[in-house]
């Protein structure tokens, strides 16, 4: 009896995946794509000037949430930095060693140099290590909540250690 139940259920499962159109005789495919539906949602709601319910302002922040937005923040910051560097390379007349010496002649002590190295290394290290964490998620690994927190703490620890190590070099 249980065997019959299982085989019948499995048959239903297989059929529901393959014979999509035939199985659900009353399932109507929509003429629009999900993208069009999303655009319609935004167009309608912005046009009606509807207020948005508080979300990030009231929800309790968690470590995973903060790490996620930090990943995005460091990514945008690093990208902007690279673009600024490239733009400067195109616009500024002198060469890189010239400007480097210029900055060094203006420095306020060795601590400033160490701190600025740390400030550069920190976002790179964080984005790199958290990026590896993201790649692990893309492989389907580490989604259990304790695992998410554990991998998060490891990323933070590695980031701090690497940044200190690089700043000391």
């Amino acid at each position, binding site marked *: 009896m249980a065997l019959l139940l299982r085989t019948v259920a499995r*048959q239903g499962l297989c059929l529901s995946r393959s014979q999509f159109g035939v199985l659900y005789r*009353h399932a109507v*495919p929509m003429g629009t794509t999900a993208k069009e539906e999303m655009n319609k949602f935004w167009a309608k709601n912005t046009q009606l000037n509807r207020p948005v319910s508080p979300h990030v302002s009231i929800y309790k922040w968690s470590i995973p949430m903060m790490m996620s937005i930090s990943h995005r923040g460091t990514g945008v910051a690093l*990208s902007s930095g690279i673009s600024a560097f490239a733009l400067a390379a195109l616009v500024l007349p002198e060469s890189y060693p010239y400007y480097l010496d210029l900055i060094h002649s203006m420095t306020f002590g060795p601590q400033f140099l160490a701190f600025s190295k740390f400030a550069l290394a920190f976002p790179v290290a964080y984005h790199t290590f958290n990026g590896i964490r993201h790649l692990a998620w893309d492989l389907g690994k580490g989604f259990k909540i304790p695992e998410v927190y554990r991998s998060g703490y490891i990323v933070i620890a590695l980031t701090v250690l690497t940044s200190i190590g690089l700043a000391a070099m």
Partner: protein
Amino acid sequence: MKRFISSHRSRAALVHPGDSSHLGLVVRIMAALVRIRSVCCRGVSPLLFRSCSLIRPLAVQKKDRDCPYLISAKIHATPSSYAGSGSKAASLHWTGERILSIVLLGLAPVAYFYPVPAVDYSLAAALTLHGHWGLGQVVTDYVHGDFKIKMANAGLFLLSTVTFAGLCYFNYHDVGICKAVALLWSK
């Protein structure tokens, strides 16, 4: 017999394709039970040849205009299910993003041990593209409205082009990315 079947239909619960939650399991068990009963009444053979006609999707957002007295499931079907092959562009883009990330990850130690022009230009390309795709996702998340999306993406494309040009110029006319980092760290 028809009346018997329709009474089973009315008792069918929510069915969602690809549902793997507990609700889906309950539904499948219920559907199986419904079919067991029909097996007892009509024998096994009609069950094996017919599709699962005893399950009816019940998900309803708004009444279907064509059949006002029948409830239907409104689903998003990609063009591939009813009109030839669809586009795998989005899926391939996602995969490309991950592969590029791994390439960039591998370039870092290579740049440290072999600071040659080939690595300089590879780094310029990989960094620019990774940043371009990353900022593209940010635009997709926060920018809405057809015109605004187009403008934001155009601006991003311009920025990425200038960035790549600038980095290549730096690699050609100046010390190059690897040497630049080395110099920065030497002081």
